[in-house]
Structure formats: structure tokens, C-alpha cells
């Protein structure tokens, strides 16, 4: 198994070491914050792993391609928008699943749509309404949905024709 990001991890480790000598208290805070974030991730990772396994086991790769591939059409956009809105946790928790889906034909535009639609956090909508008002929240949400699809279409235009965004580059 090839581990990815070992060099970056080393660099980050050195940064913590430098901070330890410069400001031990801040380093301690950083470690606590990082530990809390990691703890939150550990709650989400099992879910993502199981979802990935279920998709691999139950879903025919040809179906992934037809629902989320080049010919997926409106259905693909609706799935990407819905998945983005429903998905939980940080963006990077979903990268492994997306990488897997790309291998099965997921088109890049839908990834862009998924990521931008994630900015709609249903559990936090009441809080946004409390701070900024119902009208603001509604208009912002609608524009986010529109922008999500437009980004997806543009990414497909940029990446699709010339295959400029393939993973093997």
C-alpha cells in the first residue's frame, strides 16, 4: 500500500516542532484543535468507508456511468446537488469516495457541483436565518444552487473536451 502525503506530514510535523520552541502554549492549542478535528473525522470516516463499500458492492459500474457519467443529463445534476446538500463533514472526507467514483465514470462537472452545493448546510439554516434573515438565506441558497450547476457545466467544458483534467496527467 502506498501512503500519500508523507512528505507534507513531515513538513507539518516540523512546523509544530518550530512552534513548540517559539510558543509552546500556542503549539499546545494547535495540537488540541487538531485532535478535536481528527476526532470529528473519526465519526465520519466509518460512514464514508461503508458508503464506498456499499456502492462498490451493490452498484453496477455501468449504472454509475449512466447516472453520473457523461450521458447522465439532468438526473446527474440533481444527484450531485442533493448529495452535496445532504453530505456531512469536511470536504476532504469525501475525496476517497469521489476518487473511486471517477474511476467508474463520474464526470468532473458533477464533482464541482457537489462541492459547491455542500455550502448549503441544512442543520445550520435556522441559525443563518437568525443571524441574517429568512429572505437573505433563501436568496443565497437559490444562488448557490444555480452557481453549483454553472460551475459544473463550466468544468465539463474545460475538462471534458480536451481531457485536460484527467487523474493520470
Amino acid at each position, binding site marked *: 500500500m502506498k501512503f500519500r502525503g508523507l512528505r507534507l506530514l513531515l513538513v507539518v510535523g516540523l512546523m509544530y516542532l518550530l512552534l513548540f520552541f517559539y510558543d509552546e502554549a500556542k503549539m499546545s492549542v494547535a495540537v488540541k484543535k487538531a485532535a478535536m478535528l481528527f476526532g470529528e473525522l473519526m465519526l465520519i470516516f466509518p460512514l464514508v468507508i461503508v458508503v464506498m463499500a456499499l456502492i462498490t458492492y451493490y452498484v453496477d459500474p455501468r449504472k454509475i456511468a449512466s447516472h453520473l457519467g457523461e450521458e447522465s443529463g439532468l438526473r446527474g445534476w440533481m444527484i450531485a446537488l442533493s448529495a452535496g446538500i445532504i453530505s456531512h463533514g469536511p470536504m476532504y472526507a469525501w475525496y476517497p469516495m469521489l476518487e473511486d467514483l471517477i474511476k467508474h465514470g463520474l464526470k468532473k462537472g458533477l464533482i464541482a457541483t457537489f*462541492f459547491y452545493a455542500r455550502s448549503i448546510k441544512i442543520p445550520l439554516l435556522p441559525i443563518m436565518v437568525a443571524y441574517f434573515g429568512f429572505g437573505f438565506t433563501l436568496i443565497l441558497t437559490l444562488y448557490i444552487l444555480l452557481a453549483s450547476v454553472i460551475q459544473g457545466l463550466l468544468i465539463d467544458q474545460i475538462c471534458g473536451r480536451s481531457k485536460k483534467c484527467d487523474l493520470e496527467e
Partner: protein
Amino acid sequence: MKQNSKKISFRKSLKRSALSFASMMPMILSIVGLMGLFQAMVSKELLASLFTGDPVKDTLIGTVAGGIAVGQALVSYILGGELLEQGISIYAVTAFILAWVTLGIVQLPLEAEVLGLRFTIYRNILAFISTILVSIGTVWTIGVIG
């Protein structure tokens, strides 16, 4: 027999998913580490001090600041509310809270590693521009509707 082979296959796919995650752990730990550093070094007061009072500049500053900031989306709402009370324009605050959840400088290395460098660059540029346009559009629409 078919049922048994199916069970083994699901275990295999579970193992494969878990291994795929495990291979990314150094990268994920790096991102988490960077986020911890950011949260320790950059206070809310520091973020708030970046804004100048000029709506045009602040919209850009809000997008950049939100893109660099890390943490729960809820924190951005609270901070955004405080910025509004301090007189920072609604354009800037909208850009800030939207960029907070749509952009992420800290996780760019992992995104590039997993989804490809070119895709990552294009997606983030589009997300940056969209954030500014959505912020302007939202505030303008609210202004028109009243």
C-alpha cells in the same frame, strides 16, 4: 455458495475502501495538523481586523479570508454577524461566510493529489469567482426585493 461468495465480496470491498482511506491518512493528518495550526495562530479578532470598510475591497478580502479560514461553518455565521455589527458591508460578510465553506486553501494539496492538479485549480478559481458573484447577487436581489 452464491450467497457465501457475495459475503466475501462485500468484505473485500469494505477492506478495499478502508485501505484506500488508510493510504490517504498521512495527507489527511497533514491537513488536520495545518488546520490546528491555523486555528491556534489566527484569532477571530485578527480576521476581523483585515476588513477596511470599503465594500469593494472588503468583498475581495472577505472571499480570501473565508477561503483561508478553517473551522465549522457555524463559526463563520457568528463571526459574520459580529462583522456586520461592526459596520462591515453585507457584501463582504456574505462573501466571507460563503468562501468559508466553499473554498479551502489548506486542503488544496489533498484535493490536487486525489482529484488532479488541473481540476483543483480550475474548480477553485471558479468557486472563488462564483462566491464573489453570488454574494453581490444575493445582496443586490435583497435590495431590489426590499
